[in-house]
C-alpha cells in the first residue's frame, strides 16, 4: 500500500501539473503573459468549497461548476487584458491576483483569514473515496484534458493562437479574430485552473486566501517556463521536477522560492526555451 505521505505528494504534484498546463494555454499557446494565474485557481477552489459547504452540492457537481465559474470570471477579467500587451498585461494580471486574494481575505462571506473548512473528499459506492482513488480520478481528468490539448494543437484554433503569439497585427490582417481567440484562451485556461482549484479544495479539506496569492502564481509560471513554455509536456515535467525537489530534501523546503529563482535564472541564461523547448539540449538529443 502506498503511504499517505507519498500519495499526498503525488496528488499535489498532479494538481500543479494541471495548473501549469492551464497557464500554458494562455501564456504558451496564445502568448499572453499572466502573473495572476493563482487567482483562477483560488476562484475554482472557493467556488467548489462554497457550493459544497454552503449550497450542499455534492463534489461531482461542485467541482465542474467551479471550472465553469472560473471560466466565466476568466472571460470577464480577460476583457481588460485585451487592451494591454506584454509588460502592461503582466502588471494587469498581477493586479487581478491581488484583488481576488483581497476579496477572499476581507469579505466575511468567504471566511476571511480563517478560510473555509469542512470540505471533504468525495463519496462513491456509499463510502468515502480513498486518496489513491482520488489521485486516479484527477489523473483521468487530466488525461482527457491532454487529449483535448492535442486536438487544439492540430486545430485552426491552435494555429490562430500561434499567429497571435507571433504578431497580433499581422494575425488580424490574415483574418484571425484576435479578440475572440484571446478570450477563448483566457476562458479555457481559467476554467482548467478552476477545475484544479476544485480538486485542491476537496483534497486539502481546508482552504485559505494565502494559498492563492501572487507567490503561487509565480510558482506556476516557474513550472511552465522551467519545463518549456508552449510545449505540451514541458509544463508537466516542470511541475513534477519543481514539485518533487522540496520533498527530496526537507531543508530545501525552507529555500524553495530561492531555489526556484536560481533555477529560473539558470534556465533563462542557458536554456531559454525550457527543458523541452525547441532548441534545448534534451530535445536535440532525442531528435537525433
Amino acid at each position, binding site marked *: 500500500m502506498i503511504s499517505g505521505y507519498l500519495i499526498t505528494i503525488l496528488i499535489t504534484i498532479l494538481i500543479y501539473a494541471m495548473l501549469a498546463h492551464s497557464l500554458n494555454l494562455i501564456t504558451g499557446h496564445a502568448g499572453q503573459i499572466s502573473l495572476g494565474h493563482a487567482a483562477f485557481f483560488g476562484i475554482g477552489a472557493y467556488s467548489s468549497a462554497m457550493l459544497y459547504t454552503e449550497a450542499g452540492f455534492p463534489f461531482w457537481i461542485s467541482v465542474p461548476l467551479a471550472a465553469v465559474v472560473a471560466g466565466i470570471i476568466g472571460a470577464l477579467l480577460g476583457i481588460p487584458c485585451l487592451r494591454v500587451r506584454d509588460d502592461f498585461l503582466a502588471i494587469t494580471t498581477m493586479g487581478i491576483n491581488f484583488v481576488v486574494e483581497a476579496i477572499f481575505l476581507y469579505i466575511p462571506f468567504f471566511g476571511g483569514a480563517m478560510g473555509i473548512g469542512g470540505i471533504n473528499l468525495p463519496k462513491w459506492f456509499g463510502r468515502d473515496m480513498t486518496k489513491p482513488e482520488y489521485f486516479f480520478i484527477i489523473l483521468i481528468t487530466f488525461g482527457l484534458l491532454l487529449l483535448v490539448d492535442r486536438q487544439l494543437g492540430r486545430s485552426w484554433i491552435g494555429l490562430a493562437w500561434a499567429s497571435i503569439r507571433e504578431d497580433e497585427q499581422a494575425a488580424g490582417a490574415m483574418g*484571425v479574430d484576435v479578440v475572440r481567440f484571446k478570450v477563448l484562451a483566457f476562458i479555457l485556461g481559467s476554467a482548467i485552473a478552476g477545475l484544479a482549484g476544485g480538486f485542491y479544495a476537496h483534497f486539502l479539506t481546508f482552504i485559505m486566501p494565502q494559498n492563492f496569492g501572487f507567490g503561487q502564481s509565480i510558482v506556476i509560471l516557474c513550472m511552465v517556463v522551467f519545463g518549456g513554455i508552449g510545449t505540451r509536456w514541458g509544463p508537466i515535467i516542470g511541475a513534477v521536477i519543481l514539485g518533487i525537489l522540496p520533498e527530496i530534501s526537507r531543508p530545501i523546503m525552507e529555500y524553495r522560492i530561492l531555489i526556484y529563482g536560481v533555477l529560473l535564472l539558470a534556465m533563462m541564461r542557458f536554456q531559454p526555451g525550457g527543458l523541452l523547448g525547441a532548441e534545448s539540449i534534451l530535445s536535440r538529443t532525442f531528435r537525433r
Partner: protein
Amino acid sequence: MTLLEVKALSKEFDGLRALDGVSFAARGGEILGIIGPNGAGKTTLFNIISGIYPPSGGEINFEGKSILRLKPHQVSRLGIGRTFQIVRPFQNLDVEANVMVAFGHRVYPSLWKSAGSVWQPEIQKEVQDLIDRVGLRPHLKQIAKTLPLGFKKRLEIARALALQPRLLLLDEPSAGLRFEESLQLMGLIRQVCDQGIGILLIEHNMHVVMDLCKRIVVLDHGSKIAEGSPEEIRSNPLVIQAYLGKEA
C-alpha cells in the same frame, strides 16, 4: 468596375493631419501606384483601409459596401489582403504554417469548425500550390525568421493571396531588395494582377512604379496632389515640387 472607392478620407493623430480629404478609386485587374515623399500618409492610408485605425472622416467602400467600421479580421475576410512595409511574417512558424494561418479565414468565423484539424490533405495541397506560385516550394518547412528578406516579402504575398483577395495592398514590396530580386517580385505582382486582382502599390522605387502602374496617385502632407498616367505624373509641376522642393 470600381473595386475600392475612397472618398474625402481624413485622419488626425493628436492634431497632426496625416490624411486630408483624400479621394480615389481602384479597379480590379489594375495596379494603382501610390507615391509621395516620406510622411505623406501612404502607410496611414493602408492602415485605415485594412481596419487598423478608424478614420477621422470620409468614406471607404469596397465592392459597393462601406468597410469603415470593420475590424482588421473582418476587412481581410471580405477579400482585402495586405503586406507590411517592414515585413511581419509569423517569425517562429514555418513557411507552410504562415500561409496556412490565412487559409483559416474560411473556418475562423465558426468556433466549432475552428476546432477541426488543420492538416488535411486538400488544404495542404492548396497551401503548397500557393507557395509554389511565389517560388518558395523548396523552403516549405523553413522557419520564417531564417528566410532572406526577398523570400520574406514573397511569403507575405503568398499569405495575403491565401485570403483569396480581390484587392491586395502592397506596402513597398521592393524596398531593401537587390535589383534581380525586385525584378522577380515585379513579375509576380504583374502575374497576380493579370488574374483580375486589384492592387494598390506603395512604392518608392520610381522604376518599379512607372513600369508596373498605368495610373498613379501622388500624396504629399496627407493630401492628394496629383493623379494620372506615369507620363502625366512625371511632368506634373506639383509632383516635382513635392519631391525636389520649390525652385529658388
